[in-house]
């Protein structure tokens, strides 16, 4: 298994496990494509057995019998509680504030959790054209908690986004409260190096834990600004045997996302 090393798990595996734990106690989660898909399915099998999985494709209460390889996989539909049109899902569920938590990622994030999934370079003459918003812009505004999962690097944790696809915190908490959105902005960022929260007073991303074996220097070397540190900076608990078993045997037996 690549990236496994002496720790017994890969970088993606600790990201998945740490993210899944942030869902403890949540009820209704909007699931994204890729890693978040595995994270939510893991959480449903561990810390949040009552978690209702909602997919923007129009599925509520999915109980996929296999790892869904797309957010519209047929296994999400068979055995689910409800299938809705996308209009209803976005209007009556998301825009109406029913979604407790949602995952987002991006090519770039700034220190206030604003995300770029649109373009690297200039919009009209892009260096790299990224997928665009999808539902991210409305998820960022309406989901009560936004959980970010992405790999960390100088080019992705940036001082200035090339494009703001989805709004995070503004840096002015008073302004943020006056927005009147259901969304409170990103509450958690999990990377391959550590986990972050956001400072309540300033809305700034704050390093909470380092993954086992990761140094603060590695973190600094992989982000575009000097990170704010939690006073009680700790270590991320490694994935448990049960988490690893679920990931490897049930959720992603072919290792498509996790190796």
């Amino acid at each position, binding site marked *: 298994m690549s990236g496994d090393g002496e720790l017994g798990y890969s970088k993606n595996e600790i990201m998945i496990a740490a993210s899944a734990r942030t869902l403890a106690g949540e009820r209704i989660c909007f699931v994204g494509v890729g890693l978040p898909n595995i994270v939510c399915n893991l959480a449903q099998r561990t810390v949040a057995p009552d978690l*209702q999985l909602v997919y923007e494709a129009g599925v*509520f209460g999915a109980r996929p*019998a*296999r790892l869904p390889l797309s957010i519209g996989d047929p296994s999400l539909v068979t*055995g689910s509680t409800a*299938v809705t049109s996308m209009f209803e899902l976005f209007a*009556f569920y998301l825009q*109406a504030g029913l979604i407790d938590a949602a995952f987002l990622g991006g090519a770039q994030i700034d220190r206030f959790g604003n995300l770029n999934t649109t373009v690297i370079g200039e919009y009209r003459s892009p260096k790299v054209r990224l997928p665009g918003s999808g539902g991210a812009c409305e998820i960022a505004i309406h989901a009560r908690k936004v959980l970010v999962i992405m790999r960390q690097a100088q080019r992705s944790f940036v001082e200035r986004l090339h494009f703001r696809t989805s709004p995070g915190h503004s840096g002015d908490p008073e302004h943020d409260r006056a927005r009147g959105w259901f969304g409170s902005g990103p509450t958690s960022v999990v990377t391959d190096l550590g986990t972050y929260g956001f400072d309540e007073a300033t809305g700034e991303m704050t390093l909470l834990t380092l993954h086992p074996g990761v140094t603060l220097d590695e973190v600094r070397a992989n982000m575009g600004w000097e990170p704010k540190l939690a006073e009680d900076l700790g270590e991320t608990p490694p994935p448990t045997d049960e988490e690893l078993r679920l990931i490897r045997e049930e959720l992603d037996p072919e290792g498509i996302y996790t190796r």
Partner: protein
Amino acid sequence: MSKVATMRDAVAELVRDGDTVAIEGFTHLICFAAGHEIIRQRKRDLTLCRLTPDVIYDQMIGAGVARKLVFSWLGNPGVGSLHAVRRRIEHADPEPLEIEEYSHFGMVCRYVAGAANLPFFPIRSYYESDIPRVNPNIKPMRSPYGDGTEVYVVPPLRPDVTIVHAQRATAEGDTQIWGLMGCQKEAAFAADRVIVVCEEIVDEAVVRRDPNRTVLPGVVVDAVVPEPFGCHPSYAQGYYDRDNAFYLEWENVSRDPEALEAWLKEWVYELESHAEYVEKMGAERWERLKPGVATSGEVNYGDYS
């Protein structure tokens, strides 16, 4: 967590004096049983919302539970008038009734706006009609795009409580309806609290076998009340027919305040529950209203495990 409750408990806990209440269902699945319980518990000062206030709202308004009516078509469908409502509007007898009226599509769009958390909803209606003149909540708006098309907009309607009736629901509130859908889904999503009344409580597996039939997930439902025949004299597709004779007879009851009072006494106040109403109506009536079988056929969702 089961949300199953008796009608008495659901109404006692979830419908409060002064609330804005919607009992929706367009000709189909009108929950008379809930209306009767609201009367029985002598709720007061309600704002009642419904596209078509029909016999159930005549009964409720005649019984004095409401101070205001929000609606789009006021009548006993196919028969005539709602005389208790008319007495209050025409003669403030026994007291005035405030009204706020729209068209059908206007009411539907108000629920959609409420369900979708929109501050207004655009509609191509009301042009050259007197309705906006008597309802200033219906406002003209110009499209910001080139051609400057004029539309009207209506405001969101967000009931404190919406009550819908369904053929079946799980104990957790996952609700399935077939036949006419009216605007129950929109009215329920728009509400702060939702009571689902159903003909049958079914196992979760029944719902999960056909998720495309689900109109409400349990997460928006506060109470599930099993109440067979709870729509009488309205109907539940596949379960019982509309009782046209009752609608015809209502004309005479409704015309006479004393007859109305006597009807309420006999059929609501002096009964403890809808189950007693069903028994009192008699088995013969339910037999007469029972439809034949016309099944939907099955589709295959596919097992993808």
